[in-house]
């Protein structure tokens, strides 16, 4: 059972314009995958584009051995990926990276996603549901049309609050503002110095860099631990090339580079040196 596999495409379809979902037959992945981990995917078959592309595991079906990817067509690699059809083979490496910490069970879990950031968080929410944990999900998208998996998340039993940049659905504005409004108006949220309640809350996030930085400030201010899934340009995906560096604070006020592909992609927001 190797970490590098040629997986058969079960289906690959556009879910909304510019966003695709690909299901792959990959029992070796579904067996081992944990939420927040990613696959390193070969999008073409030639030397151009050369590198694999990191794509989060969006969902797994351990019964069928199928793993789902949810991806946005961002450039050359992902457009080649979008051209794949059922029956094609795709070379994948993984599952790779360190995923989200699964809560012990008694925390109130908050999930904040921006755009395609929902991809790894959905898998996380699947696992939580399996453990009987209901999360409060804040989901941001550009427009109402781009709210991905909103219904599926509700079906898992989670509460979902939606923010759209253009106001075409629910809250008009950024998801971080929505989240902060919520914190201010809700009684479950611990303000600074909320004491015992503090351990009762834990947040998990994935989205654009700016959103995560903002969220990191907010959660720090409110004293809510926050795990963020970061992106960086990757070479190897396995820790060998040191290209996916992320600056992480050291105890002594300095900083050191960690590898997003091995020590991440999930980091404690407080340890990330946001700049």
């Amino acid at each position, binding site marked *: 059972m*190797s*970490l*590098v596999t040629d997986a058969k495409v079960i289906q690959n379809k556009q879910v909304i314009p510019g966003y695709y979902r690909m299901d792959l037959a990959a029992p070796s992945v579904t067996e081992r995958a944990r939420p927040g981990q990613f696959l390193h995917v*070969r999008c073409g078959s030639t*030397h*151009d*584009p*050369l*590198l*694999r592309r990191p794509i989060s595991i969006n969902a797994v079906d351990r019964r069928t051995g199928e793993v789902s990817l949810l991806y946005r067509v961002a450039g050359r690699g992902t457009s080649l990926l979008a051209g794949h059809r059922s029956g094609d083979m795709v070379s994948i*490496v993984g599952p790779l990276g360190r995923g989200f910490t699964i809560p012990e069970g008694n925390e109130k879990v908050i999930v904040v996603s921006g755009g395609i950031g929902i991809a790894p968080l959905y898998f996380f929410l699947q696992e939580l549901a399996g453990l009987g944990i209901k999360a409060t999900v804040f989901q941001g998208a550009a427009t109402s049309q781009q709210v991905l998996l909103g219904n599926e998340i509700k079906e898992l039993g989670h509460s979902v609050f939606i923010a759209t940049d253009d106001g075409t659905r629910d809250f008009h504005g950024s998801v971080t503002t929505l989240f902060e409004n919520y914190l201010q108006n809700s009684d479950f949220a611990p303000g600074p110095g909320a004491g015992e309640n503090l351990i009762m809350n834990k947040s998990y996030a994935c989205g654009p860099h700016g959103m995560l930085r903002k969220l990191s400030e907010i959660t720090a201010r409110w004293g809510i631990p926050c795990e963020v899934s970061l992106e*960086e*340009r*990757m*070479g*190897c*995906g*396995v*820790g*060998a*090339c*040191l*290209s*996916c*560096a*992320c*600056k992480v604070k050291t105890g002594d006020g300095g900083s*050191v*580079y960690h590898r997003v592909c091995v020590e991440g992609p999930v980091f404690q927001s407080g340890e990330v040196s946001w700049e």
Partner: protein
Amino acid sequence: MISDSDNASISKPDLSVNVGGIRMKNPVTTASGTFGFGPEYAPYIDLNRLGAIVVKGTTLEPRAGNPTPRLVETPAGVLNSIGLQNPGVEHFIDEALPYLAGFDVPVIVNISGDTLEDYAGLAARLSRAGGVAGLEVNISCPNVKKGGMQFGGDPAMAAEVTRAVKENSELPVVVKLSPNVTSIAAVAEKVAEAGADAISLINTLLGMSVDIKTRRPILGNTMGGLSGPAVRPVAVRMVWQVYQAVKLPIIGMGGIATAADALEFILAGATAVAIGTANFVNPRATIDVLEGIEKYLSENGVGDIKELIGAAHG
């Protein structure tokens, strides 16, 4: 068609090579900086099957490396500006070497410095460490005492570095040449005169890329080194030229992704080949290349890989 291939299948071809005193069971090794310190690829391949392992570039002191982005993809290549991030030679000796000692594979340590003294110090320290089969001297670094000009850009400076390392070590010394020079043969000749036991090439071609959205260079460090299949024709040409210029064994690299690519280098004059960027695309690239070479030898009735070294020179 002919029974040559039948014969070959009876006795396995001899793949062993000797690179300036480093005895390799086969000619396939790894390119420094693309294979970490070894454990990163252990989940994908049996490290024991490699001819040698060349580890990430090491410096006397730890280095933090360059700001991000450190990598950008280019047509059939990548530009990197990692900036020699590494934990320093002492940490390497304490943490990485013991792991590598668990394999029956020669370990070649790639060393870098800003001054001649750096290189001398590294050579001395690593020679005492034990478990090191050879040193690969990366001379593509800027010489801080001479205003930042690359050691590898000047034949005389390249020779000085070689001597500094040779004088401080009994280990076989492989000098790794920079391709960013007018005459690679001239550098190779001086390095050979200075006592190098072998030559490896090519290091990366200096390149850069501009982001047309931000209108700024993409890499955090502005310029970076180009590697991958894009550079292969330049690398093969340089191996060809160095093979004609000096008598030393050559470790050829630059864009090797398949056995066919590796054989181009061997036919052009390389005694061994290193796989770099291709590991990122195919974590099993080293073994795939090795198996492909074995197959080529068997199918063509070549009993010994050494028959092919430089064979394209006719």
